[in-house]
């Protein structure tokens, strides 16, 4: 009975490649809804930058080539859709990815979850500051209110969605 009770869920049995693909699909779907349905209403300033979920979630799970490549690709798509210079969103996502990954080792041994939380927050905050700097440098000036809505909503929605962007079955990551 105990063996049955400990049987992992369907999500628990899902491998890292499938999780990577599912995460990317979620990001693309949220982006699609934002561009097609939300943008015409003018509420897109509050629509989350969904690739940040993937960047922070995948960074906190495992530092490897595949998620980094996937993030570069998602960033390229964002650049093309938002008319940003190619490489802009890729670098922002990779900064979030790298920042979140720095805290991973310490988070594995921390039972309180504070380090993990701090790592996630740092991922969002540093990527926002980097985005602000990069866009401001490129355009000459940029108003914070133009991008802060997307970053804030992405950060707030990340917590309920966090398990979907975990690439490992290691429970300690949560």
């Amino acid at each position: 009975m105990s063996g049955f009770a400990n049987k992992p869920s369907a999500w628990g049995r899902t491998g890292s490649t499938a999780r990577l693909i599912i995460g990317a699909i979620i990001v693309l779907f949220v982006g699609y809804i934002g561009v097609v349905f939300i943008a015409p209403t003018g509420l897109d300033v509050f629509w989350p930058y969904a690739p940040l979920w993937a960047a922070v979630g995948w960074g906190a799970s495992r530092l490897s080539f595949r998620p980094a490549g996937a993030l570069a690709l998602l960033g390229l798509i964002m650049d093309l859709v938002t008319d940003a210079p190619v490489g802009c969103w890729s670098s922002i996502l990779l900064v979030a990815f790298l920042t979140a990954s720095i805290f991973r080792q310490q988070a594995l041994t921390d039972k309180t979850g504070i380090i993990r939380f701090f790592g996630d927050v740092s991922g969002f905050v540093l990527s926002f500051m980097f985005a602000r700097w990069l866009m401001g440098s490129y355009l000459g000036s940029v108003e914070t209110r133009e991008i802060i809505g997307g970053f804030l909503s992405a950060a707030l929605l990340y917590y309920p969605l966090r398990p979907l962007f975990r690439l490992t079955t290691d429970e300690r990551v949560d």
Partner: protein
Amino acid sequence: MATLGRDRKAKRQVVRTFVVVAIVAALALVLFQTAPSIRGASQPLRAGMDDIVVQSASSSRQGSLFDFNNDEELQAEIERLQVENRQLAIWRDAATSMTERLQRYEELLNLASEPLPQGISARVVTETDGPFAETRLANAGALHGVRLGHVAVNTQGVIGRVIRVGNRSSRILLVTDFNSRVPVMGEISGVRAILAGGSGSEFGQLIDRPEQAPFVQGESIVTSGEGNAFPRGLRIGRAVLSGEEWVAQLSLSEAPVDFVRLLPAQTIPTPEEDPLPEAVEAEPETSAEMGQR
């Protein structure tokens, strides 16, 4: 175990270095794109992406999940449109009559008339407002005859111009965009200026005014046609005094942008660009000689 741990650490180090190098490479790529010629290299890719977004937006709208209209609402809408149609028919007759009268006056005055621009109607399917560009995507492209530089107007007036054309889509740079510059003039005062975007969605700055004369409060601001980028006389907003500065209250902000007409920019060639044939040029000289005799 120790070897395995070291291997993992070494692998993490390699990946971390790779990510840092990728960030630096992406930054270098962004830096290179400050040169317009390099940024232009990605235009076909962007036009292709615009096509994909427009196609998916158009197909999604047809069976939209967010369309809650019921039969009653549709019936009310049809009745409203029928009433509007009857009113418009009266205006159409008046316009036809006035056009005929205007043509007669122009013939009497021997006035060189301006050809009516032939445009393409399109629907704005989505928008991408952000720090980089305030643009709209319209569902007509090169296959429909849209070309780079076409002017986008709606019922309120000029909203922008086409900066990128895909096969089935075109991207319109709004007059509110930071990079937008439109030569304009006051319809009554005739004062000329450049309408610059980047001051929000409601107002545009009126800069580079060669004349010192003020605008007339509330007069229409229309395109002046200078630079041949926009045809002359298209309404773009109203002159409003804000503190001590004249600004244009944009017609773009008066109503949501839905259907637009994409008009070709009317280029009037200079005499040097479009000289007369030699035989015709000789005629005035001959008549001048005859006058001397």
